[in-house]
């Protein structure tokens, strides 16, 4: 049994987001991390490996060369090997291109489960898991609070408005999980040291059987505008007051805004 976890390197959550002239995210000089939502996918895969259900956990990422740092970091948490797809033709890739390239790479890696986080922290499109499943003509088990694999079937437990649903599909599948998986583990010191010796391959577009011509200029979509959110008015604090007075003050504030 083999899982490939697809991860994306994103700017650190608290980092200042700047845009280049062509409205792409400027990654230069910004601290980069593993997309936090992908860490839950890593944790889920490693738990299945710890339990002996899964033999191999591999990682796959598409991005600039520096994305290999994210893969190394994932390998420090656990797992066996990693592959980075990097190519000059991929600069400015949108969700469609990303899905197409990942799908081609996954066809080659042929895992039982291709596992992803539910969204990326920077773009938040949430489109890639579904697109990869569609392009590979495989079942999609999305938004899992938990993933299990038994026999020739995978299941996810998904939060619903009335409780949980269990959704099953025959392997191989594409799956995505949420933060309900549970806290991702910290990389241990030995894990960090061992990660340096684990295989990390770099593939070009040609290595996954694609060419720049297949990608329509790396994107089908175009970003027409990007701007930071409007600044919020400063937070009003109610402090150092007896409880009753503080409660009255908060109630007045809410009432003035017709919220209560």
């Amino acid at each position: 049994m083999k899982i490939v976890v697809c991860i994306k390197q994103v700017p650190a959550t608290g980092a200042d987001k700047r845009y280049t002239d062509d409205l792409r995210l400027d990654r230069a000089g910004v601290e980069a991390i593993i997309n936090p939502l992908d860490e839950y996918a890593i944790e889920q895969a490693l738990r299945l490996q710890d339990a002996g259900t899964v033999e191999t956990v591999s990682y796959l990422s598409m991005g600039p060369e520096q994305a290999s740092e994210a893969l190394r970091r994932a390998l420090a948490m656990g797992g066996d090997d990693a592959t980075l797809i990097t190519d000059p033709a991929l600069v400015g890739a949108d969700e469609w291109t990303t899905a197409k390239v990942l799908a081609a790479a996954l066809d080659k890696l042929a895992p039982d489960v291709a596992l992803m986080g539910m969204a990326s922290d920077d773009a938040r499109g949430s489109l890639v898991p579904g697109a990869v499943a569609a392009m590979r003509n495989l079942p999609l088990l999305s938004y899992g609070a938990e993933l299990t694999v038994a026999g020739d079937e995978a299941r996810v437990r998904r939060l619903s408005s009335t409780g949980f649903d269990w959704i099953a599909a025959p392997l191989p599948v594409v799956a995505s999980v949420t933060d309900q998986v549970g806290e991702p583990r910290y990389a241990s010191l030995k894990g960090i040291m061992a990660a340096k010796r684990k295989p990390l391959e770099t593939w070009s577009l040609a290595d996954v059987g694609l060419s720049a011509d297949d990608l329509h200029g790396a994107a089908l979509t175009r970003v027409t505008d990007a701007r930071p959110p409007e600044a919020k008015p400063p937070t009003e604090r109610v402090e150092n007051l007896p409880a009753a007075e503080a409660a009255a003050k908060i109630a007045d504030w809410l009432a003035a805004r017709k919220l209560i």
Partner: protein
Amino acid sequence: MTYLPTPEHEELRAMVRELAEERIAPRAAEIDEKAEFPWDLKELLAKQDLLGTCFEERHGGTALDTIAQSIVVEEIARADATTSLIPIVQKLGALPILIAGNDEQKDRYFPRLASGEWLIAFGLTEAAAGSDVASNHMRAARDGDQYVLNGSKRFITHGSIANVLTVFALTDPEAGGRKGMSAFIVETDTPGFAAPRVEHKMGIRGSPTAELTFDDVRVPVENRLGEEGDGFKIAMATLDRSRLGIAAQAVGIAQGALDAAVAYAADRMQFGQRVVDFQGIQWMLADMASQTEAARQLTYAAAARVDAAASDLPYWTSSAKLVAGDTAMRVTTDAVQVLGGYGYITEYPVERMMRDAKITQLYEGTQQIQRLVVARQLLQRAGIGARPRERRETGA
């Protein structure tokens, strides 16, 4: 000459800092208030392989260089001084075995220490023998293929929770502490051993400081470290290295207090502006930062000399501990000042840091003992030599 941290050092610091900020710092106030050893954090550090940094890989350790070991201690101490003592004492207790142990002794104890399954403590100090190590009274009398230990130890960090100790006792009382003391490995489940009392302390309150009693404690001969009479030499060699752990702890405490002071001053408004915008506060913060950095760099310089087995190692490690301990005390005191009244109450961490800092001027050699060591080395270098009264060897 390389004078920059390696990428591996930076990576290690980032790893420990993340762990310390997310998991250790939130526990620090409670550990201090309840004066309870943080078993949960001991497990966490063990799981992350941070208790085996001084052990070889064949024993399950990670064999980090001494600068890297200092970084681990520093980053934990930045969040909580008590918790930083877990790796510090794991090394302190093991150092006599690292220095003088044979392969059989190392193979027997190091795997359990490196994994964190067992804790170890270092039993040298006695009620009447602190700085004056050679005045030890505890006896170890040979009886066939065993030694019978009798006496007591005081101020033994982790003494009441350790599974095993390295203990110093006189095998030849007439020869005195300098020539007649030997070192032993003692498992704490040996009959006759007890830890009857734990001290109530000003700082590092979650770290139990115990009085230990030995009443006919029988230790097999194969648990002796080195030869009979090597004890004093082993103890001094241990302290020459272990005091660097205290230097790193002191740097971490100072950094923690500085960071807390900067964060507070940036948030606190007085006279219509942020406190941090007053130049008087900026000067204090600048002094705190540059002094902390100086202490850190001296600690790393000393650490590099441990790995290089420098012949003047005591000069470096004592200088580092002296500067770092005094810096931690000064910087934490200033941090309380920056926070004003809020610095004096337990709602903010700096009063705890100030209480924790004090111990770094006291244990593993008081600052006065460090000065004696530095001065002795200084005079040696100058070819002067110390007067007989000051030439007495001193340590813990």
